[in-house]
């Protein structure tokens, strides 16, 4: 897909499926297209000059975002809503790093952050609303600020 310069463009696609599957961190964005036939809920894409966001709202109301670089790589993911998506799927090949780091980092039931040179994951939430994001620092596009992962 072509990136559109600073003007934001939105494409809303609604398809039906059973189990949502997401392109994993570090994975190719093209797998999202393959997943489209299997997604239930809404897919929305917005593009800037620097990155594209695929936003998927699952049936249970969790909004998942995948941040895709000009090279079509998923460099960051985020989630917000009444649940936490399966991080094994979301983090893909990065999951092992996360699991190892999480087991050695003190958090609390409402907050966990891990940081490694190759991976940052932040998870927070209480009551019925949860938020989290993860990115691979060496996959971030030029001129990108992590405050845009939200």
């Amino acid at each position, binding site marked *: 897909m072509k990136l559109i310069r600073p003007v934001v463009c939105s494409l809303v696609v609604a398809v039906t499926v059973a189990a949502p599957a997401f392109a994993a961190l570090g994975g190719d964005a093209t797998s999202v297209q393959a997943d489209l036939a299997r997604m239930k809920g809404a897919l929305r894409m917005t593009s800037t000059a620097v990155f594209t966001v695929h936003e998927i709202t699952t*049936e249970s109301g969790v909004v998942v975002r995948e941040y895709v670089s000009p090279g079509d790589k998923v460099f960051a993911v985020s989630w917000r809503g009444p649940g*936490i998506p399966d991080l094994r799927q979301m983090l893909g090949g990065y999951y092992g790093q996360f699991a190892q780091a999480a087991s050695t980092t003190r958090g609390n039931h409402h*907050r966990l952050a*891990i940081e490694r040179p190759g991976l940052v994951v932040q998870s927070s939430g209480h*009551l019925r*609303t949860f938020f989290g994001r993860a990115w691979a620092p060496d996959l971030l596009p030029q001129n990108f600020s992590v405050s845009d992962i939200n």
Partner: protein
Amino acid sequence: MRKFVALALALIQLVFVAACGGGGGYGGGGGTPPPPPVQMIATPGPPNVESLKVDVGPPGLTFPAVNTAFVSVTVCVPGSKTMCQTIDHIEVDTGSVGLRILSEALTSVTLPPETDGTNPLAECVQFADGTSYGSLHVADITLPVSGEAAANVNVHIIGDPAYVASIPSNCPPGLQREDTVASFGANGILGVGPFTDDCNSTGACPLPPAPPLSQNFIYYSCPTPGTCATTTATVAQQLPNPVTLFPSPDNNGVIVELPSVASAGATTVSGSLVFGIGTRTNNGLGTATVLPEDPFTGFITGTYKGTAYIDGYLDSGSNGNFFTDSSLTACTSNPNFYCPASTMSETATLRGTNAATLTANFSVANADMLFSNTSYTAFSNLGGTNGDAMGFDLGLPFFYGHNVFTAIEGNNVSGTMGPFFAY
């Protein structure tokens, strides 16, 4: 060090004043202004005040507890006064709902299962840092010091061996499993947040038509522990907020009352968990300001250094104050906490869904320096990052020195509908 401890103890004794007669006193007269009102911490005891203690937690934790407040809870087989066990080190959490006990800690009583009429039920719950799974049971519960009691309460028993041997695939271990005392950080958790049930206060869990994928609360019907199937739980089948089941009138909210902590920290802190708001002389709002919460999310707004953070809350289950501040460096040892070169004094303005505002002053010390004193478990100036760009979480550090009220939805509490915070 001893002088410090003596001073801290004296300070605690000074503020530990019985509030049964209401009203706080301080010396006046002359031209000097009176000192600010002393924090009135209710004396533990019947009918509605439980002992609350911040300490290192039960033995064997992966991480010794920091800024975690505990009570004991007695659970009995329904109808029995002898088939009981009192479990210590149950974390008090105003950020979750429901009583959950680690199976490992429940050693001397077998509670009957909660069933859907046919099969025992189980639940998968996700916290921000992990997933806990286990069967649901029914118990008569009592808070031993206050004597507050409720019968036939649904209780989540986490990590019972027969169930965790076959964890359903949709109870993902995407976050680490917290099915043991060591990984959970306590013997259990008493969720006394501002909602009446853990998943859905007004209807079935999950909300139809969603299937329970990526849901934080998934209920299962289990013909056998190895054949659990996802199910829809009615309100009555969900995990309730135990406070709502205590005898009226002390069932509309809680107050966490913990005294101030010196800047270097403390080994333990003793205070009170008070049940009921505005129902007795020891639990009135007094001069506290009420901040009504968003009724769906429980959020208020915290404005900090010019930015309004709309995912704000006070939470006794957070062990730090977590907020975004790019001028503070995160610790290299642990990215959850800040390590400024010197202690910073910060301030925020909190606002609920009405026009009332409240100032929140707090400090942020270097977390590495705080943690270097390994005998301390309580720190009032522990701060850290918040990964939610709109998040502003005032945790237990903020509770020290404030009586913090959490009112439960559906209750008119001294003229304001819950949910709300107040201090």
